[in-house]
């Protein structure tokens, strides 16, 4: 023990048993690794096998971008929530519920679409808060609580349109949204001039006959994609650069340790449930504005797809670790593979096989990365 005073002083010198970590290894220890490798692999694969199928011309790119953006929107919410240490299995039902809510308020009740959108937003966020409140108050696993809401919300989504309209699909939202100021924020397109210009430069194809002859085939970026990119960017910055982001990591990493140092863990978790619900609302609203109708079966299984994208993105199911960028890449992989199989002429049911397989690989890889980080052996 007499040495103990100097022991600390000599610790200043390099500990010979701590190996220098190579740059490569350092680059490997990041949540996005699997997703980055996966994204590259998927693109290489489809450029090789479906490169001449139109998958990579303007229309093809738009096609898989939209599908990827849909996955991205819900993956961002699921990612933040999972890092905060919780799940939300009610996302899919929430999508159906939100869409139906907009349809009933705007079509059946004939209220303006912007009121329908705002009321639905309030409703969704409130249900998200309720989910979170029940979870933090009862201490039950969020798995069970949100599983209950999966059924509750889906049940209502089928019940109300049947009760009111005697059908499970409500159409006519596109007509109702005509001239509405808020609807284009979800259903509109931006940047049309870029595509006009690109068409003029003969960089992208134009319609060759019909009423739109001479117009570019792709005439703007759907707001869906804009929402996805904005949500990813904002969530990434909040998570990695802000005080709140630190609280999200802390709440998921070890809620009790976080509480001991004064992190408002319950508030963080409830807010993340609300954010997940908000993402489901954005997804639903974009979808409803695009299709012009709401169906009771919309959003089926989306909660699991969101979770898979997040896991591929490197987040740990146990919370406290993950990346929004990774989740976004996970969503991109999904979109590209789902549409790419179509372009490559492969039976689309194989997409599910792919999902299952890649999920398994991702979880195994994540467990390995976690061991490296935490030094467990």
């Amino acid at each position, binding site marked *: *023990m007499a*040495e*103990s*005073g100097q*022991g*600390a*002083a000599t*610790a*200043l010198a*390099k500990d010979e048993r*701590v190996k220098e*970590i190579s740059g490569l290894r350092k680059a490997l220890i990041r949540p996005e690794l699997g997703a980055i490798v996966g994204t590259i692999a998927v693109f290489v694969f489809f450029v090789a096998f479906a490169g001449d199928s139109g998958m990579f011309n303007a229309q093809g790119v738009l096609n898989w971008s939209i599908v990827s953006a849909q996955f991205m929107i819900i993956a961002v919410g699921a990612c933040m929530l999972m890092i905060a240490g919780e799940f939300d299995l009610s996302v899919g039902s929430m999508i159906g519920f939100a869409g139906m809510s907009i349809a009933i308020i705007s079509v059946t009740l004939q209220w303006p679409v912007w009121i329908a959108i705002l009321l639905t937003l309030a409703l969704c966020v409130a249900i998200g808060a309720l989910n979170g409140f029940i979870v933090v108050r009862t201490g039950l696993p969020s798995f069970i609580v949100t599983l209950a809401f999966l059924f509750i919300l889906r049940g209502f989504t089928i019940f109300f349109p049947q009760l009111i309209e005697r059908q499970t699909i409500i159409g006519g939202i596109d007509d109702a949204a005509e001239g509405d100021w808020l609807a284009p924020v979800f259903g509109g397109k931006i940047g049309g001039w870029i595509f006009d210009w690109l068409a003029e430069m003969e960089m992208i194809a134009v319609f060759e006959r019909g009423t739109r002859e001479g117009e570019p085939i792709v005439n703007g970026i759907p707001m869906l994609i804009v929402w996805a990119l904005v949500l990813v960017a904002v969530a990434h910055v*909040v998570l990695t*650069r*802000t*005080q*709140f*982001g*630190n*609280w999200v*990591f*802390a709440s998921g*990493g*070890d809620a*009790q*340790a*976080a509480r*001991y*140092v*004064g*992190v408002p863990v319950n508030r963080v978790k409830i807010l993340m449930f609300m954010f997940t619900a908000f993402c489901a609302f954005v997804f639903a609203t974009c979808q409803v504005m695009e299709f012009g109708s709401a169906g009771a079966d919309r959003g089926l299984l989306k909660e699991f797809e969101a979770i898979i994208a997040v896991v591929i993105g490197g987040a*740990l199911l146990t919370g*406290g*670790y993950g990346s929004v960028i990774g989740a976004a890449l996970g969503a991109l992989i999904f979109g590209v593979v789902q549409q790419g199989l179509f372009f490559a002429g492969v039976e689309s049911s194989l997409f599910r096989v792919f999902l299952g397989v890649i999920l398994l690989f991702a979880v195994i890889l994540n467990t390995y990365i*976690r061991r490296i*980080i*935490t*030094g*467990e052996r």
Partner: protein
Amino acid sequence: MSGFDHDPIVEMKDIAKHFGPVIALNGVSFDVRPGECHCLLGDNGAGKSTFIKTMSGVHKPTRGEILFEGCQMNFDSPRDAMEAGIATVYQDLAMIPLMSVTRNFWMGREPVRKIGPMKFMDFAKANQTTMDEMRKMGINLRSPDQAVGTLSGGERQTVAIARAVYFGAKVLILDEPTSALGVRQTANVLATIDKVRKTGIGIVFITHNVRHALAVGDRFTVLNRGKTLGTAQRGQITPEELQDMMAGGQEMVALEGSLGGTV
């Protein structure tokens, strides 16, 4: 070094704590002065944990009073105690292994720059301070981004201690900081305790290892079955006496005879 010329920072008088029919503490008195390391010893179940949780605001005492710098205090939560200057480093709840050292160090008290409604973490300052504070404690971090999980158990304790010291703790309660550590790491943590004590912070060192206690302790209080068996000063007590007090007397002597050495 031991600061007997100072008044106690925290004084716990005749503390009792009952959990329903169970009497966990039955009249424990204890105090800690600036710059001293007061060891609280006791076997498992002696009431050490209950006692420090009372001191750090987790439990409210059933009877007795807590004086902090001479004033009676009534802590409602650990947060209250922390703000008064009583910091507790729990053995396994101190750190979050998946988060970086910086993120752990500042957790709950992040340095922020406000840009609009967003409170951005000032990582430049946070990283610099973390590196500096850790260096003061004798630990050279490879990088402040390094996950706490890559540190050894002793280093993790040191991060927690450095954090408490940096945020102005006047009393530092260490809950069995050495119990899960190897010999070398234990030595490092004990050295850290010595360093912190010299800055005038009062340390409450909970342990059931007599040798660890004697290495740094100025005073020793032994708890047994919810009661204090008395407080001894450094030099007034031998390791054997301490050991016997902790174990509650006779059986230990008999056992040691058959084992051939100090446990």
